[in-house]
Each structure stands twice: as structure tokens, then as C-alpha cells.
């Protein structure tokens, strides 16, 4: 690999993510936006496994993994130690996790990090299931998605519960910044990471990262499918400041959700089930109204 690439990037080639992995795309953008003076704590999950296959690491900044549930607790400790040493001013602390490591098992540690006011950014890479262990449903899995623990079939249209509203849960701590982003618009990730890191205090950023394997899409469709999630209203791009909705990306003429669903194996069963399809359209309509997307 050419030397320039290795010098310019803080997350490099040779990692073992699947071809076209949205999470792998997003993490380089996050790392490069944060830059050299950054310490990262990482929960267990695909990202941790594919980036740090022992004895190797794809990261070019200090990076620590401990457990599935405690990325935010680790970041809290790192931040406190840096502050004690008088070094926090110039160093970014980032905790990162998948949606399971954020919305489910990592939620308590995350809430603690926000509530105690640590100067750190938590990044959730939302691929909407436990991908690393075989596509099990998480609290962040969308309504009616088929996963290995919420399979669609004769008596089920997939995951029976709506997606957990993590961005609102974080905003409810009245932190300075809680936002969503997506690989649908890769530059948006860079802008929001830079913005978040300029703010002192706890920050939350959740990035929609399609997973070709778990969503059953071709590896070349990662960005296209993420765009459809945004343009149907199923993945609103929003920013909360101190608990109040400050900005939302407008979608002037929302596409029908079927455009998004038919592109993915995990939703294909809905195309033959009018009632279940209408249920997903209702989720999008509600988002459009709630966030004022039109």
C-alpha cells in the first residue's frame, strides 16, 4: 500500500470487513475527521472484530477494547484521567459501538457518560441488528424487518416492535448535541463529527450504515439503499441541541417505503403482505410529521 495512504488515514486497509460494509466506510470518515489527537474506546461487535484481528490493528490512533457493554464507561475513565492530567483540551475522546452495543447492552454506560457530563463523543454505527453474531434482532432493528430471531413467516411479518428512539433518549439528557447521520451522504458524517468535537461536553452521533450481509443487498448498493432510507422518511437526519430539535434534513417529495423495502432481502416478504407494508409506511409518515421533514 502506498505510503501516502498510510500517512493520511487513521483507519487503514487490510481490515476484514465484508466488501461494501457501510460501517467500514463510516469509521474511516469518523477517524479522519477526528484526526491524530484522538483516543478511541470500542465495544465488541463487527467493527471491533474486523478492525483489530489480533495481532493487528487498522487504527492509527490509541484504541482500546474491553467489553461489549462498556465503551462509554471506558471513554468516561479516559476522559477523566486526561482532565486530571490537564491534557483534555487537545485530545478528543470517542466511544464507538454497534447498535446492539448502544441501544441494548451499552445503554446504561452511555446514559452514565451523558449524565455525568463527560467531554466525549459516542458514535453508534447503526446497522440495525447484531450482525457480528449472525443477524439477531436488536432494539434498533426496524419494524417488520426479518432477522434470525425475528424471522418472517406464516405467523410473523418480522420484528414486531418499532425502532428504539436512541437519538431522543440521548437528547433527553439535555446534552449539547445528539444527531443522526448516514452513509447516504458521506460528507454529512464528516461535517457532524467535526461539529460535535468542537463542542465541550457529551455528544451522541448515530450513523446509518447498511450491512450487505445482514440486509441481503449487493455490496455495491450500500449507499443507494441508505439514500432510500432517508428519502422515504424511514431514517430522518436530525440534530438536537440541549434537548431541542434544532435541524432536520427536508425531503420535499418523500418516496413510498416500498422503494426502500424491495431493495433488501430482509424486507422482501412485505411486498406480498399489504397490511404489513402499510404498517411500515405509517412509520415513515409519522417520522415526516414528527420531525417536520416536508
Amino acid at each position, binding site marked *: 500500500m502506498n505510503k501516502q*495512504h498510510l500517512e493520511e488515514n487513521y483507519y487503514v486497509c487490510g481490515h476484514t470487513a465484508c466488501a461494501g460494509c457501510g460501517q467500514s466506510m463510516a469509521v474511516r470518515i469518523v477517524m479522519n475527521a477526528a484526526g491524530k489527537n484522538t483516543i478511541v474506546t470500542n465495544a465488541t461487535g463487527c467493527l471491533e472484530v474486523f478492525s483489530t484481528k489480533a495481532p493487528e490493528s487498522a487504527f*492509527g490512533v490509541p484504541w482500546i477494547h474491553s467489553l461489549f457493554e462498556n465503551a462509554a464507561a471506558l471513554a468516561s475513565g479516559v476522559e477523566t484521567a486526561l482532565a486530571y492530567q490537564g491534557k483534555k483540551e487537545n485530545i478528543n475522546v470517542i466511544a464507538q459501538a454497534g447498535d446492539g452495543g448502544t441501544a441494548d447492552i451499552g445503554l446504561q454506560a452511555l446514559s452514565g457518560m451523558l449524565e455525568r457530563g463527560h467531554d466525549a463523543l459516542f458514535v453508534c454505527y447503526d446497522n440495525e441488528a447484531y450482525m457480528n453474531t449472525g443477524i439477531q434482532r436488536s432494539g434498533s432493528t426496524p419494524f417488520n424487518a426479518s432477522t434470525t430471531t425475528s424471522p418472517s413467516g406464516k405467523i410473523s411479518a418480522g420484528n414486531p416492535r418499532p425502532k428504539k428512539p436512541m437519538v431522543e433518549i440521548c437528547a433527553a439528557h439535555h446534552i449539547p448535541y445528539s444527531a443522526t447521520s448516514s452513509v447516504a451522504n458521506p460528507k454529512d458524517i464528516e461535517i457532524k463529527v467535526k461539529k460535535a468535537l468542537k463542542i465541550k461536553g457529551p455528544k451522541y452521533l448515530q450513523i446509518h450504515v447498511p450491512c450487505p450481509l445482514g440486509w441481503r443487498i449487493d*455490496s455495491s448498493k*450500500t449507499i443507494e439503499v441508505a439514500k432510500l432510507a432517508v428519502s422515504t422518511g424511514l431514517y430522518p437526519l436530525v440534530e438536537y441541541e440541549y434537548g431541542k430539535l434544532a435541524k432536520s434534513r427536508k425531503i420535499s417529495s418523500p418516496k413510498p417505503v416500498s422503494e426502500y423495502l424491495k431493495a433488501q432481502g430482509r424486507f422482501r416478504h412485505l411486498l406480498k403482505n399489504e397490511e404489513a407494508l402499510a404498517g411500515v409506511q405509517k412509520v415513515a409518515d409519522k417520522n415526516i410529521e414528527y420531525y417536520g421533514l416536508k
Partner: protein
Amino acid sequence: MFSILAAKPKSSARNKTGSWRSTKMPRLLKKECINCGLCKFVCPEGCISGSEKNQYSVDSEYCKGCGLCAYICPKKDIEMIENKPEKSNSSEEAEKDKGVGK
């Protein structure tokens, strides 16, 4: 038994993941490029380099052939062509430079 589990920064680069490519690989046409840098920005492998018009290149030793660079290029200046298989990682190279316990 106890040992420190640590790895050298960026040491993953010794994995030549180009051997994973199956059916397709990108070809940069180098005709209409406007130096927007988007292909390099989105490549999940980070294996595209370049900073001038029509001068971008793909490192086929790492490219997994996903096709996202071709999708994002606003000038359609990247096309996916039939894959040329890459030699797989030599075990000798993987043995070198181990970071565990150091």
C-alpha cells in the same frame, strides 16, 4: 498466563485483502475525472489514492471489488470490469512483524 494484548498501529495493512475479490474490479477510465475525491472518500477499504484530475488509482492488492467507487463517481469515470484474481497473502509475510505482547 498473562500478557499484554497490543498491536502496532495500522499493522492490518499486511493483510492483502485483494484476494477476496470475486467477480468484479474497478477500472478508472481517467477521462472525465473532476478530482472531487469522492471515490477515495467512500472506499470502505481506503485503497484509492490520488489528488489530481485523472490521476486517481486503485490498489488492487486491497480492493474487495464492492463497486461503491463506481456508484459514487459523479462523472461515471469508474467502471466495474471482470476481476483479475490477486495472489493470496503469503503466510511468511503474516508471520513477520507480530504485535502481540510487544
